[in-house]
């Protein structure tokens, strides 16, 4: 080859297009400021390397994103990564061939992946009984107790000493009512706070087979004397006007922020919203418990969502997914996310990093949620894995509404809820049998 040809060849080679960037579709349900957070994470990852491009796509709320993914999957067009809420875990897991476990994705991509670096109660929820992590915890929150410090002061209680047991909560509610509060206590996400997390916090089962981890033939058991006693207490408080029902799902959040309700059990992730919008000084403390129950307090159950990897993609794409998940699990990324959003840090390293930076001294209460989760979990408190969980929660809402309205007794309501819920579990078992 003569010199000219060599130059020509070299120029051609230099002008040849770089290896095509692998695009990774990430479907999520984060709107508002959280959407910014998601976009920021993707952008930072994309900026740091050129091989993969993560494209976050907002797909409505959790239900809508799930429906979109199901439709897309059935048409052969699924995204790579899908954000699914915690109650959809069993659905994702039981779907034959639809997902690829995160642990497999990471090991196939040749990335170091040690489940022990993750906060036990957070990752445990998304881990199979054999220890294989199925999905990556992303935005996890847990049940905490929010209270209005100014209202406490006005009622003659010490704002720095929130009630820690349910009897103390009842007393506080009575004092608040005496000073004219129309709504001393309420709760959001009734099933999550008062039955699911309640069970784990007291180290009792919510459903058999280790809350469903060990098989699709699990059945509900939240109508034990302890559960009946607790709901009976709440019903009594409701009759006295001390506990006021403010609606399903997160409807009660707004009533606390506006100052209408003085105490409520809800998500730790509401912290940011409260700090920003409430006119009063607010505090967070751990979920109340019954001191006479052995083993209480154990740990609480998480809420929020995790990231699942859908099947049917090429190994090259999975490598990109692995790289992105590796990035998301970095301590500094986790720490930043945790401080920005109020969601839990999923690795212990991130928690320690945040602690060392003095974040918790500047923002007292932000570590309450983490502390509730850091304990080693037991078989009864690792989390809940039940099919048709969305329907079961709706059933619990419906039956308990009958209790709050005074239309039915507590034992009757819980028994009916268990019976109807078990029908759902049987149906799920049947549908996912083959």
């Amino acid at each position, binding site marked *: 080859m003569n010199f000219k040809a060599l130059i020509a060849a070299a120029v051609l080679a230099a002008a040849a297009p770089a290896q095509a960037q692998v695009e990774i579709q990430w479907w999520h349900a984060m709107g508002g400021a959280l959407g910014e957070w998601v976009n920021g994470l993707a952008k930072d990852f994309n900026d740091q390397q050129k091989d993969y491009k993560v494209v976050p796509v907002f797909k409505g709320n959790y*239900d809508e994103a799930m429906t979109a993914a199901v439709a897309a999957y059935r048409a052969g067009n699924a995204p790579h990564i899908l954000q699914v809420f915690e109650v959809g875990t069993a659905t994702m897991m*039981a779907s*034959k061939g639809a997902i690829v476990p995160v642990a497999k994705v990471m090991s196939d991509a040749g990335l170091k992946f040690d489940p022990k670096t993750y906060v036990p109660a957070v990752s445990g929820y998304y881990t199979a009984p054999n220890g294989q992590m199925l999905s990556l915890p992303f935005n996890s929150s847990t049940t905490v107790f929010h209270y209005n410090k100014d209202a406490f002061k006005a009622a003659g209680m010490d704002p720095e000493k929130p009630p820690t047991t349910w009897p103390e909560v009842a007393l506080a509610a009575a004092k608040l009512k005496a000073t004219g509060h129309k709504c001393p206590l309420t709760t959001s996400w009734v099933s999550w706070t008062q039955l699911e997390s309640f069970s784990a916090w007291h180290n009792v089962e919510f459903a058999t087979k280790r809350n469903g981890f060990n098989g699709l033939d699990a059945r509900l058991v939240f109508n034990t004397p302890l559960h009946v006693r607790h709901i009976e207490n709440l019903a009594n408080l409701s009759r006295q006007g001390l506990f006021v029902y403010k*609606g399903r799902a997160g409807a009660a959040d707004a009533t606390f922020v506006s100052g209408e309700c003085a105490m409520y059990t809800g998500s730790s992730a509401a912290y940011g919203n409260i700090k920003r919008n409430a006119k009063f000084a607010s505090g967070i403390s751990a979920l109340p418990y019954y001191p006479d129950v052995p083993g209480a307090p154990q740990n609480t159950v998480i809420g929020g969502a995790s990231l699942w990897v859908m099947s049917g993609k090429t190994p090259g794409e999975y490598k990109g997914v692995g790289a992105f998940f590796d990035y998301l699990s970095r301590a500094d990324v986790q720490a930043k996310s945790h401080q920005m959003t109020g969601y839990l840090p999923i690795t212990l390293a991130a928690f320690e990093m945040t602690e060392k930076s003095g974040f918790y001294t500047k923002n007292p209460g932000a570590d309450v949620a983490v502390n509730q989760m850091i304990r080693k979990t037991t078989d009864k408190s690792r989390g809940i894995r039940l099919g048709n969980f969305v329907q079961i929660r*709706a059933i619990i*809402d419906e039956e308990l*509404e009958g209790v709050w309205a005074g239309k039915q007794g507590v034992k009757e309501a819980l028994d009916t809820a268990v019976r109807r819920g078990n029908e759902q579990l049987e149906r799920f078992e049947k*549908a996912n049998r*083959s």
Partner: protein
Amino acid sequence: MAIEKRVRFGNRWLPWLLVAPQMVVVTIFFFWPAGSALYQSVLLEDAFGGSSQFVGLDNFNRLFSDGSYLASFRTTAVFSLLVASCGICIALLLAVMANRVIRGATLYTTLLVWPYAVAPAIAGVLWLFMFAPSVGIVSHALRSLGIEWNHLLNGNQAMALIIMAAVWKQISYNFLFFLAGLQSIPKSLIEAAAIDGARPWHRFWTIVFPLLSPTTFFLLVINIVYAFFDTFAIVDAATQGGPGKDTAILVYKAYYDGFKAMDLGGSAAQSVILMAIVIALTVVQFRYVERRVQY
């Protein structure tokens, strides 16, 4: 169809050409997906379709042996009847009044039709804002009148809330079509009747209302279909079928099962049943009510 025109055109191939675009779209984008969706009513599947079993009429049997499903038939009947009748009557009244006034007609029409443009996502939020027990603007006002509003626990109030929200949206729709209908009635007819000495009330019932009957029939059918099918978004935003199951209308359960619970087979079975009901209702209307319509 019972009503026929006497005069017709005789071309053989032209009508096919005229209906072709609509039929093509309907076949590809309705019948094909609908068939696929309805077929799921005889299957029991997991969400992603990985494991699928044929279960015959099992899904249907399960529905009919569920007490709360049967109860929601009654809830739906009450709801649909009230929504359709209130929506039509109120809109008719407003349209007749708007047709009367000369000054300000444009303004009134704009203000009355504009709410139809409120996106459903926002409408749901607005109703919650206004009716939130104890802090909503309207519930505040009701309390000052002595009415304790808590639709979270009071089934009747919850029902009232969703009826109000559903009717609100439909008033704009019905008003628009009634007004268009009224304004296409030739003035000469009204004048002739007035010259003959007929009073306004009499004129309305003997001339205007019959001439308006094609529009009224159209709106009756559409409103019933609307009440049965398009109202789940309101229920979802306002009460989620609660308290208990007091506002769980049929379409809400179908939507809930398909979208939130990922029970596509059950949702499809319910859709089949809903379809059958509405088709039956519509056939009844075409057969018996259309007789009284004057074209």
